C-alpha cells in the first residue's frame, strides 16, 4: 500500500510542483494519474520511488518512507518496484538485452533464468529481434518499450510508468498498455501518469492533478 500524506514539493527556484497532495493507493490497485504538462505527475512518481524528497508531508511505500530510508533500505525497496521513466534512463552504450538483464542480475538471478526471462519480456514488447542492438540505436518508441521491459522484467510488486505510451503509435501503445493491464490483473500495483487518457481503459483509481494539486479522484 502507498500512502501520500499532504505532500508538498517546492523546488529550489521556488516552483511548487506539488501542493498538499494526499492519496492512498491500495495494494493491487491500478492508479491512473492524469493531468496536463507541469501538473506534478512526474514529481509524484519521483516521490514514491524515492528519487526526490517532499518539502513537507510524507510518502510511505509498503510501510517505508523513501525520503527517510537508509541507502540500503531504499535500494531494497527499489528492487521490488519497477519504473518506466519518461526520459527512459537507459544506458545508451548497452544492448537492449543488457539494459533489461541488469535488473535480474541485481536480484542475483541465475544466468540461465536471466536469459530466458529477458528474451520473454523483450518478446512481450516486440523487441526480441533487436535485443543485441545498442539502446542508442533504437527509435524513440522502441526505447520506451525497452524502458517498460526493464520495469517489468523482475515482476515487481509496484510498477510506476511515466507517460508510457507517449512515443508510440496507436497500435504499439495499445499493445503495451494491454501488457501493463495484464500485469495488474496478476496482482501488480500499477501507477500510470499520463497527460491523456487514451488507452487507459482499465484503471481502478483515477486521479486528476492540476497545478500540483489533486482536482479529483
Amino acid at each position, binding site marked *: 500500500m502507498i500512502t501520500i500524506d499532504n505532500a508538498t514539493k517546492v523546488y529550489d527556484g521556488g516552483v511548487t510542483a506539488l501542493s498538499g497532495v494526499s492519496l492512498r493507493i491500495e495494494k493491487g490497485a491500478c492508479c491512473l494519474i492524469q493531468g496536463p504538462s507541469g501538473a506534478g505527475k512526474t514529481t509524484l512518481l519521483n516521490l514514491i520511488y524515492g*528519487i526526490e524528497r517532499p518539502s513537507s508531508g510524507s510518502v510511505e511505500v509498503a510501510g517505508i518512507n523513501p525520503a527517510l530510508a537508509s541507502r540500503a533500505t531504499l*535500494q531494497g525497496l527499489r*528492487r521490488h518496484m519497477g519504473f518506466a521513466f519518461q526520459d527512459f534512463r*537507459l*544506458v*545508451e*552504450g548497452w544492448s537492449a538485452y543488457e539494459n533489461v538483464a*541488469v535488473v535480474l542480475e541485481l536480484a542475483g538471478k541465475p544466468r540461465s533464468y536471466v536469459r530466458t526471462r529477458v528474451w520473454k519480456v523483450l518478446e512481450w514488447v516486440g523487441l526480441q529481434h533487436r535485443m543485441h542492438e545498442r539502446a542508442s540505436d533504437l527509435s524513440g518508441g522502441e526505447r520506451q518499450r525497452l524502458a517498460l521491459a526493464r520495469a517489468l522484467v523482475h515482476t515487481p510488486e509496484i510498477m510506476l510508468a511515466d507517460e508510457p505510451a507517449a512515443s508510440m503509435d496507436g497500435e504499439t501503445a495499445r499493445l503495451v498498455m494491454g501488457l501493463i493491464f495484464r500485469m495488474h490483473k496478476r496482482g501488480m500495483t500499477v501507477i500510470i501518469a499520463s497527460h491523456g487518457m487514451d488507452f487507459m481503459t482499465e484503471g481502478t483509481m483515477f486521479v486528476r492533478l492540476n497545478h500540483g494539486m489533486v482536482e479529483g479522484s
Partner: protein
Amino acid sequence: MVPIPYIARYLRRSLIMRPWAILMTLLAFSLVGTLLALTVYVVDLARTASLMPVSAGSMMAYLAGRPSAEAVERLKKDIGSLPGIERVVFIPRGEGLVRLRRWLGDDNPLVADLEAEALPDAFEVRVDPSHADDAQALAERIGHLPEIDDVRYNQGLMGHLAGSYRGIRTAGTVLAGALVLCLGLIVFLSLRVSLQGRRHELEILALLGAGRLFLHAPHIVEALGLCCIGAIVGCLLAGYSVEALRAHISLLNGVMGAFSLWHAGVVLGVCVPLSLTGVALALRR
C-alpha cells in the same frame, strides 16, 4: 553477492571501448612494478651481503704518527700472534710511496709531487687462507691495537654492499615509498577517469536499486587485476634483468642470487593492498 556476469561484461566492454587507456595503465603499473621489484631485490642483496662473512687474503694496517722501532716490532709481534695471521710485513712510508707510484704511475699528478712524509707507515698482514672468512673480525682486533690508526682490506663487491647496507636500505625505502605513492596515484587517477566515464551508467544502476558492491565491484576487479598483472610483469622483467646480469657478468654470478618467489611475493604484497587503498580513496571521493 558478487555480480560476476556484470563484472565480466564490464571488463569486456572496457577492453573494447578503451583499449589504449587500459594498455597505458598496464604499462604504468608494469614500469612501477619493475622498479619496485628491482628495489626490493637490491635491498635484499645488500641485506644478504651484510649477513655474510667478508673474505680477504690480506689487509693493510696503517700506523698513527711515527712510532719508534721498538713499538713497530712490538706491534708486529702482537699482530703476528693473532690466530689466523700468516705473515706480517712492515712497510715504511718511503716504500709505501714507491708502491703507490708503481701502482698509479710515476707521472700521475696524484703522486708526482707527493712526499713520503705525507704517508703513514703500515703493516701488510697476510691472512691464513683457512681464516679468510674471519677477515672482518681480524681487522677489528688489529684496529683496536694501540697506535693502529686504520685497517683496510679488499672486501670485494659483497663487502662493499654489506658496508653500504644501511644506506641502500634507506635509499630503497625512500624509493619504494615513492614508487608505492606513484602506484596509488595511478590507481586513483585511472579509477577516477573510469568512474567519470561511467557516471551516467552508475546513476541509472543506483536508480534501479544497485548497491555499492554491484556498482563498484567492476572497478575493484579492474584495478586489482591491472595491478597484479603489472606486478607480475614487473617481477618477470626484474627477474630477467637479474638473470641477464648474472649470465653476462661472470663477476656478479657468485654475488647475486636469483630473483626469487620471495621477492615477487614482497612486490605483490605491497602492490595489492596499495591498489585497494587507491580504489577505496577513489570510490570515497
